[in-house]
């Protein structure tokens, strides 16, 4: 069973969404619907599965419906039609009380512009989720302090958010989401408002934390590099439609349509593609010059061994962790994988 399952979800914004639903279902596009009825299509027949412990990145340009999608998971927005299952429970079937309980214990969220409470200190902000869970102040504070330390903000716990820089504020947001110790974390463009250096720093911090915690993370971004770096799977949204779901390599090597292709056109492939993806398996590797070989781990990115190949003008032997030869890479494979088609 998938951790999160979304089946045929539609979301239409406007005064009478249900009247327009048929039109959208019958295949009318976003612009056509807007022109004819004045309704905005937020999501158009979106179905996807997110497995436990993975980071699922949902990517698209502004207005593609990615923020709408993530808000469906904890029902900050209700779908017009469709089904959302979290751990097998239909979220739509929850009444107010159960929904509140669900939000308290199942999911936490990080926001683009941080969404911190300006009238609470860092400590109180981080402890907010715990406060909602009804945990005693003493225990709440000790957990909060732990998380503040984990994101590297010790010493700032009694400051107010307005006294912190953007990067620090988002760390508070992250700590707040971690504090409730929910299985699922929703991150809505969490790092988009930060400058590039701090963003990269935060990405690393998230990867490190995720390596320990193994949470199910749904991450929204419009930045392809970010999605390639963080995502186990990536879903690409365009005008409310999910155009492609796949691993980072899938997306880059086999873009589903022009839109995705335009998206991945400028990406640095050497940074994303691993040796094992492009290698020729041993049994197909006949007639390769094996006199001058470089040993390459199968999980290494092309970027890491490319300079060596260029300098020594040699072929690569790809090995797994035990040192068994899995395949070979020649200039031909490198050229093929790095050329923008």
């Amino acid at each position, binding site marked *: 069973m998938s951790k999160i399952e979304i089946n045929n979800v539609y979301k239409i914004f406007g005064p009478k969404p249900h009247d327009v639903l048929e039109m959208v279902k019958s295949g009318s596009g976003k612009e056509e619907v807007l022109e004819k009825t004045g309704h905005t299509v937020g999501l158009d027949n979106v179905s996807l599965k997110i497995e436990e412990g993975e980071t699922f990145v949902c990517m698209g340009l502004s207005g593609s419906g990615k923020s709408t999608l993530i*808000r469906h998971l*904890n029902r*900050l927005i209700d779908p017009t039609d469709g089904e959302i299952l979290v751990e097998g429970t239909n979220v739509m079937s929850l009444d107010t009380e159960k929904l*509140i*309980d*669900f*939000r*308290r*214990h199942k*999911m*936490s*969220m990080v*926001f*683009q*512009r*941080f*969404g*911190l*409470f*300006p*009238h609470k200190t860092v400590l109180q902000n981080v402890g*907010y*989720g715990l406060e*909602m*869970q009804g945990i005693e102040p003493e225990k709440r504070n000790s957990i909060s302090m732990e998380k503040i330390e984990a994101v590297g903000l010790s010493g700032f716990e009694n*400051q*107010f958010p*307005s*006294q912190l820089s953007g990067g620090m504020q988002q760390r508070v947001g992250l700590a*707040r989401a971690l504090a*409730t110790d929910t299985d699922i974390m*929703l991150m809505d463009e969490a790092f988009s408002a930060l400058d590039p250096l701090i963003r990269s720093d935060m990405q690393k911090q998230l990867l490190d934390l995720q390596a320990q915690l193994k949470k199910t993370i749904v991450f929204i971004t419009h930045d392809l590099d970010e999605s390639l770096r963080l995502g186990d799977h990536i879903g690409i949204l365009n005008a409310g439609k999910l155009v492609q779901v796949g691993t980072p390599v899938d997306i880059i090597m086999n873009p589903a349509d022009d839109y995705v292709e335009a998206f991945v056109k400028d990406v640095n492939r050497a940074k994303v593609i691993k040796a094992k993806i492009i290698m020729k398996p041993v049994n197909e590797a006949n007639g390769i010059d094996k006199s001058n070989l470089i040993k390459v781990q199968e999980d290494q990115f092309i970027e890491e061994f490319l300079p060596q190949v260029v300098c020594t003008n040699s072929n690569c032997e790809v090995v797994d962790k035990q040192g068994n030869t899995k395949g070979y890479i020649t200039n031909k494979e490198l050229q093929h994988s790095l050329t923008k088609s």
Partner: protein
Amino acid sequence: MLKILKENKKQVFNLLLLFLFFYLLVMSYGASKYKPESVSELLNFTVWLNDWPKWLDLPLMNWINDWFKEFNEKYGIIFEVINNFLLGMVLGLKKILVKTPWPIVIILVTLLAYFSSGKKVGTTVFVFFCTFFIGFLHPRFWDKAIETTAIMLIGIFLCLIIGIPLGILISRSERFRNVLLPVLDTMQTIPSFCYLIPGIMLFGLGAVPAIIATFIYAVPPLVRLTDLGIRLVDKEVIEAADAFGASKKQKLLGVQLPLALPNIMQGINQCTMMALAMVVIASMIGTRGLGDEVLLGLQQLNVGRAAEAGIAIVLLAIVLDRITQAYGETLQERRAPAKKVKK
């Protein structure tokens, strides 16, 4: 049939309004004393096109008078109760303040200013002198100022306990807001004498109709600013509260109200100022206080007397304004301190 009604709500509503209009036309024509003698006169356009015809007159005045008379007879007892209750509060408050020796009152007001402004010396000294000058202008003013303050405080108290909940309500319900906003507009624009007269008839002369008038005049800004304050709270902050599973009550008390507080304090401040403006008008229906000094000056064409009383009212306004404003500012500072560079 019902379905057609539901689908064309707007048209049906407009049609009903049209019917109402014709009903009123027929009714007023029927009730008019100046009906034309014959139909031929009706058809003689030159007669009634020049001046507004006398028979085209909505007898709203009679309707209201009849209705009010009946209302007064039936429900007068309720207003008597309200009257006694409010009067008791005003008299009690006044008694305490008047019986306290004036230096002590000045000291108390100064202390209040000191603590509400977050121990700012400048504000405190300013408030002290303003308070002192109220009595210093004319010894009689002191007791009158206290009377005015007592009426105002009760009025503002009413505004608070009714205005803030109303503000919260309209911030939550679009429909309720659409209903209430025109009512608030009416309350603010209708000349105060229009409700002072029924006020006198229901409550008698004196302090209570003044309190009611103060309330009607001063509550709209408080309702509006409470509503505005709550709706201006950052949407993402509200989403954050929702996402972490705050219940409606937790969200209101823990997030929305605290963040709307600067605006609400502004509303209370506006409320106070408008209440004070009402004091002079209320003196015309026999409410004692600083306002009747102005009125006396007016009646005697005594410029100096009116000016003295006018200044005393302004001083009172300054004192109240400083105390409520300063309290709002202190709150804001405590909750969201100005950004400091910290390494």
